[in-house]
């Protein structure tokens, strides 16, 4: 069920990135998956895409909140500054191990964030995403 072209994973947790990649691949959820251990690096990559190949802007971003250096919230601040015609088409999901209610509410209140999911990423979550967003 290949549905998406490009997915970005932003998480300092290497193992979780491996896990996400494996699930996405096994579900044939996306063609290309790029993992970033640092939000700064992901942002640099996005900026490069905007500049050189806007059509290669990811369709889905999975973002962790607790990260060294730039954290998830700060990434969203910067993400907001990217060209809206590109970010509008991109689905941004916060994927966190946090069970803090404030984090969940805060994430869902941000217009840039499409939804909040608790780790680990599973095939069920991918199912929900494809049902809710692909049709629209």
């Amino acid at each position, binding site marked *: 069920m290949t549905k998406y072209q490009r997915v970005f994973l932003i998480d*300092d*947790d290497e*193992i*979780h990135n*491996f*896990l996400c990649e*494996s*699930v996405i691949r*096994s579900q044939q959820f996306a063609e290309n998956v790029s993992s970033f*251990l*640092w939000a*700064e*690096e992901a942002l640099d990559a996005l900026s490069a895409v905007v500049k050189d190949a806007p059509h290669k802007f990811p369709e889905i971003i999975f973002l962790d909140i*607790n990260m*060294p*250096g*730039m954290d998830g919230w700060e990434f969203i601040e910067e993400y907001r500054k990217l060209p809206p015609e590109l970010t509008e088409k991109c689905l941004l999901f916060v994927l*966190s*191990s*946090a*069970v*803090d209610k404030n984090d969940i509410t805060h994430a869902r209140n941000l217009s840039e964030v499409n939804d909040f999911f*608790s*780790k*680990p*990423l*599973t*095939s069920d979550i991918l199912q929900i995403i494809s049902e809710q967003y692909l049709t629209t």
Partner: protein
Amino acid sequence: MWVYDTDSLRFLTVNAAAERLYGFTREEFLQMTLKDIRPADQVQKVLKVIASLRDTLYSAGEWVHLKKDGTELHVEIVSHELSPVMGSSVRRLVVVHDITARKLAQKQLAEAEQYAQSILNNIVEVVFSFNEKMEMTYISPQCDAILGYTPAQFYADKYLWFNRVHPDDRALFVESLPQIRVSPEQFQLEYRVLSASGEEKWLITRCTAQLNEQGQMVRMDGSANDITSRKKMEEKLSFADFSIERASDAFLWTRADAHITRVNRATCLLLGYTEEELLQRRTLDLVPELTEQSWSLLWAKFKAHKSLEFETVFKAKDGQLHPVEVHLNYFKMGPETYSFTSIRPIAERKQAEAEKNRLTEEMARQNEHLRQFTYIVSHNLRAPVANIVGLLHLYNRKNHADPINSLLINKLERTTHRLDNTLWDLNDILTVRSKQEQALEKTDLVKVLSEVQESLAGQLVDTPCCFSVDFAQGQTVLGVKGYVHSIFFNLITNAIKYRAQDRPLKIRIKTVFSKGYLCLQIQDNGLGIDLAKQKAKIFGLYRRFHPHIEGKGVGLHMIKTQIETMGGWVEVESEEGKGSTFKVYFQVAPKNDEIPESLLDR
């Protein structure tokens, strides 16, 4: 005297005395009738008398006649009918007795009496008189207003006055009456009397005995005045005075010129001066921050507001300074203006406030710690667990030979290790935190540093490092040796880990006295951190700042927890690409010889 005709009323003859008394000559009299020597309004009355049947000798009583000069003459008249003479009418001999002088004296006496009575009626005091048996012989009508008894009641019961004296004050009379009876001096007594309605009245009596030649009392005159309201006011005043004097708060009264006019006991106690000493002083002598100029400014403001409240410091006799809160109340008495000032020492309150603030801060800090800790712990414990759950999902249970399975096992192993490490880290941090009250001991920084360098010998061989060390300003701190070791260890390993690849690592270690603390500075020339972005997080738990370099984000958080547990704190200065300086502030032993004199008064 004269003789007149009862029909014609003409004078028939007058004597020389009549001429002298009335001022008419004999010739003039003989031309006049009786009517001519009387005021017009009396003529009818005399005609009536003359027309009436009278005895031969008739005492006509007192009459008013007119002299020639028109003045009135008070006379007493007796007339006698003369023996009839043939062919003539009835004649009467009239003897006139001049009573003008007597009448005048009587009139003056009456006036004087009326005058005295008026005075007696109009004075507030009761005036009285007793005879030698101490029976009341006179009392002025005011007794009714004051005591509710009329003079008549006092005359009827001669001893009423004494019977109404308050039982507690009778002794006063028993004691002083014998003295009053034998002395010409005026005596004064203050005592209570019960009025007719049973009300208690305070009276002041002034009385003097009138003594005869033998020195015995014949009369005693005096006055009594109602002083109930004065007595009540005195009672109130003495009650207020007593309260002020015994109050635990210090009070002082000041004039506009800053002179102290009165103090209470608490003020003397607070400042260590006697009352006499304070009354010779001015507020400027007691409040060091006051000058002549600031006092007049203060007084002007005070005069406008009528009341002021502020905090200041009083200096006691022994030189001790007392932080106080003063409250000034403005009042005027005669031409002078005063401040009634209450003084409340607030040293304890200040101390308590400071202590409260410290505890509140400490609590807020602890709460914040706890909040962060819970958040981080939940995240960091949950992250590996989430991984384990996810990895197990991917495990191919149907085909154990699936090559992905061995990969997953490998990842599971790593995740489990991470979970284990996290638990150990948390255990370490909790151990430090739970030992808040750990006893501090003198710790030698030089000794601890050399131990740390020894334990890092392996890494220091791989990464050559140039140390420059300067402990000239002090090397002994109050601390927990294990924590000091951990601080050195973490800061040096961080410097090694985050060194710049393009230059040899240099670490400068020195101590500096600052704000009464010994500050340990560890400076490196490594990668540095962008503090503008990261300052708030740098000492946070599980915070990492450098991509591609292994780190757990525990070390700096650990240092912060440890130094705060030892009563100090840690600061950082850093510039990206140039290096970082960590400043760790340690408490120093109070009697440390290395502390410069100037820092001891902290």
